[in-house]
């Protein structure tokens, strides 16, 4: 939950960046105009959320689906956002997928690593000690430097 009213503001720096990237170079934007656009963006979030949410409720759903957001855009007469939004959603889905795969691969790798350690512990000594050695040396170097 939002604890302070500022929690409902979007960061001015990011808003300014989007504005600057949109406009031709060299166009100045008055501070008052920038904060008004940031305020408008917050109102837009609320308006979109409530429009999409009532669409979901109409369909007897508790949560807002991607389709609800698209329909909301149409209702609000922002149809031209729908196509770039669909593209962005595809990118998002793909990156979520690869994130998941990375996580799984990582978990798998960890498992094999643990297995490796268990088998090789007695034979080869262990890497853990090596790492500690390096840190120790680093510390010593630091001390030496300070002494000099």
């Amino acid at each position: 939950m939002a604890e302070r009213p500022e929690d409902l503001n979007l960061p001015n720096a990011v808003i300014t960046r989007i504005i600057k990237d949109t406009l031709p170079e060299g166009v100045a934007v008055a501070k008052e105009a920038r904060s008004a656009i940031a305020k408008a963006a917050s109102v837009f979030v609320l308006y979109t959320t409530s429009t999409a949410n009532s669409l979901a409720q109409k369909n007897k759903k508790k949560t807002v689906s991607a389709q609800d957001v698209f329909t909301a855009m149409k209702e609000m007469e922002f149809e031209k956002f729908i196509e770039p939004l669909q593209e962005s959603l595809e990118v998002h889905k793909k990156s979520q997928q690869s994130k998941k795969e990375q996580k799984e691969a990582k978990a798998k790798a960890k498992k094999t690593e643990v297995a490796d350690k268990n088998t090789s512990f007695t034979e080869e000594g262990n890497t853990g000690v090596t790492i500690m050695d390096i840190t120790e040396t680093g510390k010593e170097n630091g001390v030496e430097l300070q002494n000099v």
Partner: protein
Amino acid sequence: MASSPSKSPHVKTFPGKLGRPSSVPTDLILPTQRVKMIMKSCPDVEMVPQEALHLITKATELFVQYLAEESYKKVASKDRIDYDDLSNAVHDIEHLEFLREAIPKKVTWAEAQKLIEENSNKFEGFF
């Protein structure tokens, strides 16, 4: 420094704790957590699914671009956008009606006084 050959592929693929936890690209620049907070401040909204959050964040970025473009169309000097350019855009474009309260047109003190006088009978009960 792969101590055992079975480990080397793992080392190559994952740089370890120092590597950033997520190298997965995202096309958003607004912070989704903040957008989520605003969404949750809406009555009747409890859960915010990932997809909806992503879409609404992206839509907000597009919306900021749109507002900047429309305000720029209103400017007189072509090198500067002022509050009035924005409020003119908001009040001229029909589907931006939802912003009219948040971004009112400015009035001068003289105009405000005139408005107060004209509507003075409406305010009588207040004073």
